[in-house]
């Protein structure tokens, strides 16, 4: 993991390091088992097409979990991810890049805790934000 990031290191508008994903159909099946979401549009092409989709689609909750990883890795061992989430606005497909990004929107101190809020999202190969979301994390302070 990268060096620990501190509250004092970040400012509004800062982009956090991106996380790049590319799901094989195998990864989607592992996710189906891990999450308990066995809806066939995520691994059965003929089923997906029968519902009007062009392709198997990546689970929205998996993309949300990617955003969880983006944040977990960024806040480091001394930070905590307090809240994260997104809306599933666009579909993503297997074997295409899904780039997870975040930008700091606000930082503040409440009690003893140093909070940072962010916009987070995943981006498809066309640069569209398929899962816009927000997050709130706690970072350590240099004191």
């Amino acid at each position, binding site marked *: 993991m990268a060096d620990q990031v501190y509250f004092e290191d970040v400012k509004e508008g800062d982009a956090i390091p991106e996380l790049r994903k590319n799901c094989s159909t195998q990864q989607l099946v592992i996710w189906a088992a891990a999450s308990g979401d066995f809806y066939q549009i995520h691994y059965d092409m003929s089923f997906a097409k029968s*519902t009007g989709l062009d392709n198997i689609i990546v689970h929205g909750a998996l993309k949300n979990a*990617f955003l969880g*990883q983006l944040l977990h890795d960024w806040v480091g061992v001394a930070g905590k991810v307090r809240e994260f989430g997104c809306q599933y606005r666009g579909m993503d497909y297997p074997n295409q890049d899904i780039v997870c990004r975040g930008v700091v929107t606000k930082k503040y101190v409440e009690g003893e805790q140093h909070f940072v809020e962010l916009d987070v999202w995943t981006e498809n190969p066309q640069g569209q934000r398929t899962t816009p979301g927000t997050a709130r994390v706690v970072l350590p302070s240099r004191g």
Partner: protein
Amino acid sequence: MAESVVTDAMRAAIGVEGPPTIAEVTASGIRLFARAVGHADPAFYDEAAAKERGYRGLLAPPGYLGTPVYRPGGRDPDELGQRYEIPYKRILNGGTTYEYMEPVVAGDVITSRSRITEFRERAGSMGPMLITYRETLFTRQDGKVVAKMRGNIINY
């Protein structure tokens, strides 16, 4: 905009807490979830590494709140608390937000209780849709609320 599909039965369901669901946070469940996402943090794979960081046990990755206890035959709709019909047969997950109050670790048993907070209807690109907003509270075996989830499901 098509005629509203929100019935009196649906309106009556708003705010009513559904029956509890029990989920077990197991070491294998944690590792499988972490692997599915592609996590590399040893705290999700190695109990000793997690404990060294001050956690009570193997740490659950963001978004993993245990595996629901499975029973063959499933649960009937009455038991699930859904007492209304929706005229759309296709369904999509519209969005999810997790808020964490406490770390979740292997060995935790989590009881979740969910309630509908709102119905909204929209004319989407795929036709009329019904959006159901839900809030779920996750309570640990010692009674502490460890997380809250807000989500919405789209029927169309």
